[in-house]
C-alpha cells in the first residue's frame, strides 16, 4: 500500500494520477464486500476520531461519511455550520486547530469556499477529506460515480460520458471531468451556454448545446441537479425552458442506447432534469451510486487515515 498510496489528504481528483484513482477503486471493492456481510464492521480505524465538519448543509454526503467511518470502527463527531463557532466569528483556521487539539485524526470538510480543504490541509497534521468545496471539487462523489461505471461496464477507458446540467457551478462536474479524462473516457458537457462555457474545452472535454445529438452516442449520462434560485436567475430563463431544452424526459430517453447508464448525484428534481419514469427505470443506477458511495468513502478514509498516523 505504501507504494501505491502516500497521501494524508484527499483534496480533489485533479491532483491524483490515474493509478491512484484506480487504487482507490480497487480498495473500495474490498469494502463493498464488507457491506454485504451480516456484520458490516471492520476494525481498520478503531481508536481514531473522525470529525464531520460541514460548513454548508448536507444530509446525504454527511450520512455516507458517518456510516463509512462507523463501519471502520472510528469514533465520529458531527459539527455543522450553525452549531459551530464560525457563526460567532472564529476563523476556519482557529476552529480546525481546536478540533486538532482534541486529537481529531480525520477531518471531513464540506465548505462553500473553493480551496478551503487545501487551506486546512496545509495547516493541520490531521487528514483532510474534501466533502465538497464551493464549485471546485467533490472527489468522493466522482469516485463513487467512477466506481459505479466501472462496476456496471467493466471499464471506463473508451466510454462516452455525457454530463448534463449546471456545469459552471458544479463541483461534481469538475471532479468527474478530472477523473474521467484521466481514466481515458470521452466526456461531453451539455447544458445552457451560460452554464457550460466553452472555456471547459481546455480541460480536455467536448461541449455541446444540443442534447438530442449527444444522447444517442452516450454510454453514460450523468445528470446534475438544476436550480433556479437567486444566483442563477441571470444564467437561464427558468426551469420550464431548461426542461424543454435539456431535461431527460421519457421521450428523450428513447434516444439512449439500451445499455446506457443513467446517473444522478442526487437529490433529484423529478420532472425537472429527469422524468420520474426515467429515474426509476431499468437504466437508472442512481441508488447503486448511493450504495457504492459507502464503499468508496470507506476506502478513502482507510487509505488517508492510515497515512496520517
Amino acid at each position, binding site marked *: 500500500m505504501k507504494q501505491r498510496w502516500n497521501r494524508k489528504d484527499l483534496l480533489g481528483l485533479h491532483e491524483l494520477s490515474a493509478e491512484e484513482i484506480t487504487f482507490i477503486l480497487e480498495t473500495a471493492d474490498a469494502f463493498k464486500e464488507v457491506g454485504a456481510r451480516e456484520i458490516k464492521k471492520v476494525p481498520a480505524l478503531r481508536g481514531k476520531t473522525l470529525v464531520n465538519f460541514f460548513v454548508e448543509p448536507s444530509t446525504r454526503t454527511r450520512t455516507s461519511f458517518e456510516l463509512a467511518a462507523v463501519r471502520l470502527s472510528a469514533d465520529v463527531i458531527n459539527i455543522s455550520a450553525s452549531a459551530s463557532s464560525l457563526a460567532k466569528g472564529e476563523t476556519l483556521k482557529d476552529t480546525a486547530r481546536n478540533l486538532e487539539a482534541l486529537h481529531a485524526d480525520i477531518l471531513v470538510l464540506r465548505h462553500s469556499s*473553493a*480551496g478551503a480543504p487545501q487551506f486546512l490541509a496545509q495547516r493541520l497534521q490531521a487528514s483532510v477529506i474534501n466533502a465538497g468545496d*464551493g*464549485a471546485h*471539487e467533490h472527489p468522493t462523489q466522482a469516485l463513487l460515480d467512477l466506481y459505479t461505471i466501472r462496476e456496471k461496464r467493466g471499464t471506463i477507458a473508451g466510454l462516452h460520458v455525457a454530463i448534463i446540467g449546471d456545469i459552471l457551478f458544479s463541483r461534481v462536474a469538475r471532479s468527474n471531468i478530472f477523473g474521467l479524462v484521466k481514466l481515458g473516457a470521452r466526456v461531453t458537457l451539455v447544458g445552457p451556454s451560460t452554464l457550460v462555457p466553452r*472555456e471547459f474545452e481546455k480541460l480536455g472535454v467536448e461541449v455541446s448545446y444540443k442534447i438530442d445529438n449527444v444522447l444517442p452516442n452516450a454510454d453514460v449520462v450523468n445528470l446534475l441537479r438544476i436550480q433556479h434560485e437567486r444566483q442563477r436567475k441571470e444564467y437561464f430563463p427558468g426551469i420550464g425552458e431548461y426542461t424543454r431544452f435539456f431535461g431527460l424526459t421519457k421521450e428523450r430517453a428513447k434516444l439512449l442506447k439500451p445499455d446506457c447508464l443513467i446517473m444522478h448525484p442526487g437529490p433529484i428534481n423529478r420532472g425537472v432534469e429527469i422524468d420520474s419514469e426515467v429515474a426509476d427505470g431499468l437504466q437508472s443506477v442512481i441508488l447503486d451510486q448511493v450504495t457504492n458511495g459507502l464503499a468508496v468513502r470507506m476506502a478513502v478514509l482507510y487509505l488517508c487515515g492510515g497515512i496520517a498516523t
Partner: protein
Amino acid sequence: MEESRRDVSATIIRNGRVIDPANKRDEIADLLIVDGKITPLSQLSTLNPQPDEIDASNLIVCPGLIDMHVHLREPGFGHKETIDSGARAAAAGGFTTIVCMPNTSPVADNPSTIAWIRNRAAGACVNVLPTGAISKGLAGEELAPIGSLAQAGVVAITDDGHCVQNHELMRRAIEYARMVGVPVLDECRDYNLVGSGVVNEGYWSTLLGLPGWPAVGEEVIVMRNILLAELCDHQVHCLHLTTAGSVRLLREARGRGVKISGEVCPHHIALTDEAIQSFDTNYKMNPPLRAQVDVDALLEGIADGTLSVLASDHAPHADFEKEVEFDTAPFGIIGLETELSLFLHLLVHKHRKIDIVRLIEMYTVEPAKLLKLDAGTLSVGASADVTLLDLDLEWTVRADEFQSASRNSPFDGRKLKGRAVRTIVGGKTVWRL
C-alpha cells in the same frame, strides 16, 4: 558627523549618474543640496565648512520617486498600516512622495478628515499627500464636497476601493473636479459584470471553480471614463489597469488626445492567474491577476507610452485577515518595498521594454504632471527629494524585514535585480540600505 555646526545644512552627492527626466538630464555629475534644496554646484566654493559627502559612484541619482496609489489605512485601520509605518515602507522602497487613498474610516470625504491626515502626515518621513472621495462615504450616490476637499489640500478625487456605478454622477463629478482643478482617479470595475468574482475569469477560474472576474468588467468602465473625459474635457486617470482590452481602448483614446491616462501595478506584470492554484490569498487582489496575453499587452502599453504611470496599490492587511478562505479574504497586497525592484527587474533588465530613464520618468514626471505636484525633478530650487538606485544590486525579498506593518506580499523570497539604496527627503536621508 562630528564637524562644526553650520548655519545651513549641506550635502553633496558625488559621482553618481544623475538622471533627471524633467530636465532631460543624464550624466555623471555631482548634486549639491543646501538647506533642503537642490543648489547650483557653483555655490560649493561659498560653503564653509564644506558639505557632507555621499559617494554615489556606480549609483543612479534621480528625483525622489512618487507612488500615486497607496493605502495607508489611517484613520481607522491602524492595525494594518499607519501613516507613519507606510511612510517608512515608502522610504525603504525609494519613494519620497506617496499619495494615499480615501477608503479609510471615517472615509476621507470631508475636510476635517483630510486635515487629520495632513496633520499625521506632517510627522511622517516622506511626503504624504491625501486624496478625497468622489462620493459621500464612497457609496456612489451623492457627490462629496469636492470643492472643500480641494481647498483642504487633496491632490485628486477618487472612490478607489469602490467605483462609481452611476454614470451621471461620475459625469458631474468630473465636471465639478474640472472647475476646482483636481484630477479624477478611478478604479475601473463594473459591479454587475464582476459580481462576486475573485479571480480572472478564464482557464484557472474554470479549473478551480472560483468565481470569475471578467476582463470586460474593467473594460466597460475604462470605456465609460474615456467617453466622460472627452465629454468633460478633463483628466481622468484609470488606476491599476490589467487587461489587453483596456490597453487597446486607452491607446486609441490617447491617440485622439483625450485626457485619459492609465497606470500599472507590478504584480499585474510579474504574475499571471496561474498563481491562484495554490489558493494563497496573497494572490488575491482587485483587479485580479490576469492571463499571459494581458501581461504581454500591459508590457506593450508601457513600452509605447499608453500606460504612463507605475504604482503599487499598496494594500496592507493583517495576517489574521488574509489567512482565511480564498473567496472571503480581503483583496490586496502590499507593494511599496518591492515595486521599484520588480519594475527594474522586469521592465529594464528582463523584458527590456523601457530604459531606466523612462522608468524614472514614469515614477516622477508623469505622476507630478497628472497631479500638478511640485515634485519629481532635480531642478535648482526644488525640494531635495532624491533617490539613489543601484541598478544591478541583486537581492532577495524578505517579508520579515519590511518596514510596513503588514506582510501580505506574494514576493517573499523572490530574487530581484536593482533597488533603491538611499532615500533623501528635503535634503535629509530618511532611509539607507
